[in-house]
């Protein structure tokens, strides 16, 4: 279960390239392209921001209500975790 207190962190060793402002992530032999909000979420998964913080970052960047983007952010982070691109660093943030 992904709660707002969990802290996602980009997995080390995953190859990342910035191409024309977007991110291309190497997953085995495939490439995952992250644009716009997807890129922002991945960039924000720095091992310090909680999920709730990332929700606020996305909401602020797109002038949206945090409640509206919360589910999408959580699902996307779960998806990235499932692909081995993001891992859960700690249950409670280290501040």
């Amino acid at each position, binding site marked *: 279960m992904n709660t707002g207190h969990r802290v996602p962190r980009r997995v080390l060793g995953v190859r990342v390239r910035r*191409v024309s402002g977007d991110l291309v992530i190497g997953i085995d032999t495939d490439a995952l392209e992250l644009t716009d909000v997807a890129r922002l979420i991945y960039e924000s998964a720095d091992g310090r921001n909680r999920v709730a913080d990332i929700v606020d970052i996305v909401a602020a960047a797109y002038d949206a209500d945090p409640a509206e983007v919360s589910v999408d952010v959580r699902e996307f982070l779960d998806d990235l975790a499932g692909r081995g691109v993001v891992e859960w660093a700690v249950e409670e943030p280290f501040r």
Partner: protein
Amino acid sequence: MSERTGIAVPTEMQHPTDWLNPLRERNLLPDDTVAAFVVGSVARGWENARSDFDIYVVTTEEVRTESYSAALMSLDPPRVRNEVFFENDRRWEITYWLERQFDQMLAKISWEKYTGEVFAGEILTPREETSLARLVHCRPLLGSEWIEAKCELLNRSAFRSIVVVRSLGLADDAAEDALGQLEAGHLESAVLSARRALGHAVDSLLESAGEYGSHMPKWRPNRFRAAAPELLSFESYWVLETMRDYDPADPRSWVRSVLTICQDIAMRVETA
């Protein structure tokens, strides 16, 4: 060849003739010279009293002097010739390039080559890369228009992307080594691999700002100051480079923090 007799005193060489006259006196400036320029630390103002004077002379015909040596190149002809002499306790090294050799190097860094199947790290040899990079910060003595034209071609080429992608790839390889070594408990080796990853990642950051020369890591701090990247302050970089936060009792923490910085750099360095 004369012997170096002691520590040289820094020389004020302000005018091109200060550089060219010692060459002319030794008959080392051919009539078909199209360009001559100072390269290396002296050209960048980073020299010290022990620094060599490195000068590239570009000609249309191959130079043949009595005492030259030659360095092998993957070009046609497959060599550049060098002359060395000493004056005022300074070692002067003159490298003779053919104009068409520069053209061949520039042809290697086309966008077609970059987007082709050749690995970015194999497009240029280290010496070719260094030689092209030296054009950017050279000190022209003769043929300023030729130099400007070649710099313009370099700027329009895929050179920057080639070296950035090469350095990022090497950083990734070293990071993978470090992580594998951490997992296997080879902590000291992991530390060395992380240091190597950091060097390549920082090189990519500097190269993206047009500060080339990653084959000469001794100048990385100078290049860092010149590039002044927003992503990483010099002070933070120097803490990493000098391992100030390294705790021998907890190498894993240092390795992971360094690899995180490397990934942050890769995420932000633009590759065309």
